[in-house]
């Protein structure tokens, strides 16, 4: 397949702000009678999958939806905390579609497609309308209008939220829309099912092989098109803020079946997470970026200052983000904030037992911002500091209550009283399956939506933009773009699943499962995953170098070999077996990890979250190389874990590319 891969991003011609409008009015439609005969498989029920499945079913297509959890409502999107962006400009603070577009391209360090990002900004406003209509209880002002807050990398307030549970509320809205279609018989839902391969017939995606996780049976499912909405792969690092089950298997199997993988090394390390506390740690917990609206980040100016943080006076504190980036202060983008925290800790200024943490402190704003405002609202004259703090704590509770509670449950410390201790952790993957403007991979009929694709965030995603992208893809993009493909499929009858391609795909899946069961080694799946995570975090994490990446590649290969020789998967494959599920996922991570390192090694520049030690400015900022690397890396899989690089050049016609500055 190799030589003839030609990357066609299918970006429509015309002026940027007109591309999507023109596309929509000219894309072929499928008439209602034909839609009823067209079957669509949607794998994943997070924001991207639920919204897509519900909308496509509303339009009349026959939909089958899959998720590995026990209910579609439990997809990882449920855990998103801080909010969702939209260019509504309800705050009248100068926001616009163009500004959201511009912020996103700049935030992504000029490594995303203009046309995709502009479309995202355009449809962002409809998302909020749709969610409100579904009964999503966003935060509101006393007057009854919607409330907004700020996120990093922007100077406007465009983030809509529902306390610290925005993802939950948005997902429940989409889930309910999906269940409505299930009730109406337009969607057939397969929970506790895991897709283990895509079936390609005559070059087109025609179905999947899924394992019923309760009975262990392998099932064949036909579809005229297959949508992968299977989330991100941050768990390749073992410890991340992702849910335990988040994995790359669906995308990876598609990759091995011929789909290109875009920018695999672009990983987001989130600056504000609860630090690692012990060797038993199974995951890391995010403290939402929204906290940086009111939390100030600092470390002591003196090394080993062991005073209680509240006793360290102002003059002995280093608010290093405010110092280095006065224009954006605590609200610089994530990659910048994470590296700055690592820089301070590596230099010996970290706090807490491990010295690998910095303070996120709410006291100043609880007293001075909220305490004072409340005092004046309540007509309290000359309030003392204790009163102000108490009033401010009430406001903080309303804005961030669930996050503060979560912090306290985990650390046993009360953030209303003492600053949080935080450290960066793996959070999101900008990379994913390569897709064109229509969200189709290079395999016709195979689409990727949401975090599973590589599309809109370049080398760094801005906060509150993943929820926006997932819902944009599912509610407002795929319903149009899929017509371009399916309008040519109306004559394709549903295929019986006993044809040779389905049989072969199922056989391949069965053989891998049998192989995993038969190794009968000594080491648990978990222990391999943990070791892979350490390699990735040390050598392909916040800081990467040629030497480290080369070592990592060798180590991962050796670990993979050891895995296939000595892993122990207990139980049987003919029934419920969480260890077997995990084993398959870790096997895929062991291949993906290598490709991520290869990609990071190939990209001889620093951009966004990809920071190569060798390429930095004198001030330690990421140094891009636009002359040589202004492209999307799209990797093609070759037998035996070899890859070939294809490049999609990025063209900026509407934005003047510049060195990113938040000073």
């Amino acid at each position, binding site marked *: 397949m190799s030589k003839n891969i030609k990357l066609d991003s299918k970006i429509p011609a015309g002026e940027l702000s007109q591309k999507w409008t023109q596309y929509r009015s000219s894309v072929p439609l499928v008439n209602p009678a034909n839609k009823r005969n067209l079957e669509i498989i949607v794998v994943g029920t997070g924001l991207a999958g639920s919204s897509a499945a*519900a*909308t496509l079913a*509303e339009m009349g297509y026959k939909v089958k939806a899959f998720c590995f*959890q*026990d*209910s*579609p409502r*439990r997809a*990882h999107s*449920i*855990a998103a905390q801080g909010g969702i962006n939209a260019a509504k400009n*309800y705050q009248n603070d100068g926001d616009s579609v163009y500004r959201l577009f511009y912020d996103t391209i700049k935030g992504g360090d000029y490594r995303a497609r203009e046309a995709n990002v502009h479309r995202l900004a355009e449809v962002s406003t409809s998302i909020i*309308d*749709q969610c*409100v*209509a*579904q*009964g999503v*209880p*966003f*935060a*509101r*002002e*006393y*007057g*009854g*209008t*919607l409330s907004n807050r700020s996120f990093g990398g922007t100077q406007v307030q465009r983030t809509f939220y*529902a*306390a610290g549970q925005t993802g*939950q*509320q948005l997902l429940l809205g989409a889930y*309910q*829309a999906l*269940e*409505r279609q*299930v*009730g109406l018989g337009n969607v057939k*839902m397969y929970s506790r099912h895991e897709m283990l391969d895509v079936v390609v017939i005559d070059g087109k995606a025609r179905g999947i092989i899924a394992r019923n996780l309760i009975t262990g049976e392998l099932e064949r499912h036909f579809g005229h098109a297959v949508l992968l909405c299977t989330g991100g792969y941050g768990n390749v690092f073992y410890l991340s803020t992702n*849910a335990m089950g988040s994995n790359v298997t669906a995308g990876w199997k598609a990759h091995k079946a011929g789909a290109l993988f875009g920018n695999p090394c672009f990983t987001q390390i989130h600056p504000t997470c609860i630090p690692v*506390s*012990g060797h*038993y740690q*199974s*995951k890391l917990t995010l403290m939402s970026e929204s906290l940086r609206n009111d939390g100030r980040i600092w470390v002591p100016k003196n090394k080993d200052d062991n005073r209680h943080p509240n006793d360290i006076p102002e003059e002995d504190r280093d608010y290093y983000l405010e110092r280095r980036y006065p224009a954006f202060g605590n609200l610089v983008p994530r990659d910048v904030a994470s590296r700055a925290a690592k820089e301070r800790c590596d230099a010996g200024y970290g706090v807490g037992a491990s010295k690998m943490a910095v303070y996120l402190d709410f006291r100043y704003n609880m007293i001075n911002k909220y305490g004072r405002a409340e005092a004046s609202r309540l007509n309290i004259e000359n309030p003392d500091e204790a009163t102000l703090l108490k009033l401010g704590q009430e406001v903080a509770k309303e804005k961030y209550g669930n996050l503060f509670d*979560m912090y306290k*449950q*985990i650390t046993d410390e009360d953030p209303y009283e003492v600053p949080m201790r935080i450290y960066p952790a793996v959070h999101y993957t900008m990379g994913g399956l390569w897709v064109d403007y229509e969200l189709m991979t290079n395999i016709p009929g195979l689409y990727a939506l949401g975090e599973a694709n590589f599309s809109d965030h370049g080398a760094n995603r801005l906060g509150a933009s993943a929820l926006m992208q997932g819902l944009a893809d599912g*509610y*407002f993009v795929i319903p149009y773009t899929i017509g371009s493909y399916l309008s040519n499929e109306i004559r394709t009858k549903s295929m019986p699943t006993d044809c040779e391609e389905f049989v072969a795909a199922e056989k391949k899946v069965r053989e891998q499962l049998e192989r995993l069961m038969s190794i009968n080694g*000594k080491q648990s799946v*978990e222990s391999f995953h943990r070791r892979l995570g350490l390699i990735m975090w040390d050598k392909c994490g916040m800081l990467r170098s040629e030497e480290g990446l080369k070592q990592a590649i060798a180590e991962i290969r050796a670990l993979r070999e050891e895995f296939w020789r000595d892993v*122990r998967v*207990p*139980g049987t494959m003919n*029934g*419920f*077996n*969480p*260890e077997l599920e995990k084993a398959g996922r870790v096997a895929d991570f062991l291949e993906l990890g290598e490709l991520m390192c290869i990609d990071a090694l190939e990209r001889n520049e620093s951009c966004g979250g990809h920071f190569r030690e060798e390429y930095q400015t004198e001030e330690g900022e990421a140094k891009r190389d636009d002359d040589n690397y202004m492209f999307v890396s799209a990797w093609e899989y070759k037998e035996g874990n070899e890859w070939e690089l294809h490049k999609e050049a990025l063209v900026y016609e509407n934005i003047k590319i510049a060195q990113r500055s938040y000073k």
Partner: protein
Amino acid sequence: MSNSNMNLKLKVWRQQNANDSGHFEDYTVQASPDMSFLEMFDVLNEQLITEGKDPVAFDHDCREGICGMCSMVINGRPHGPKGGVTTCQLHMRSFNDGDTIVVEPWRSNAFPVIRDLSVNRSAFDRIIAAGGYVSVNTGNAVDANATLIPKEIADEAFEAATCIGCGACVSACKNASAMLFVGAKVTQLSLLPQGQAEASKRVVAMVNQMDAEGFGACTNTGACSAECPKQIPLTVIATLNREYIKAKLKGY
């Protein structure tokens, strides 16, 4: 391993599948107070795998109290002794060195055991599919600020909407009633203007489905709300009853 300083005895429910009758097995495990309850189970499973035994199956995903997947009855209480938290948010510091801890799955006919501590809660999905939504297709919406909603109403709807669908309420109830779960959704959607048009149809459909799934009747004991990790208040059941009567009077 310096911080593994608690020795615990566990009595864990083991059941091969829905048809197996099940039994308790005893284990000992070392834990640290900063571990979460599920991390303690990870340690146990790692131990069992090394010994060549079958690990304990249990459900979990987010491990931060929001997905609603984790579901253990710990010393007789769904989600354990602490109150206001899910199993995954429970930390070993809530226990003492030397404790014996009994761990069982949710127990309800409507939630059949799949294996060990994993149960099947798809009955909840079917209740939502029966009516727990607003009938609005994508693209139908008006501008989000076109309908003003007083902050107090929005906050109250949000509070009800924080239900994570875990099923602890059912497990806690001696009748295995699902009224708190259903009440939470009915309350959220009937408070908001967007949900009011089909409020009557919704409540009747959801209650009918709840009954069809085999959940028990509510006798106002309040155990559900007491054990709910999201502290969904009992008032949602009052709202559910009110909405139901209103709908019946209207002839639904």
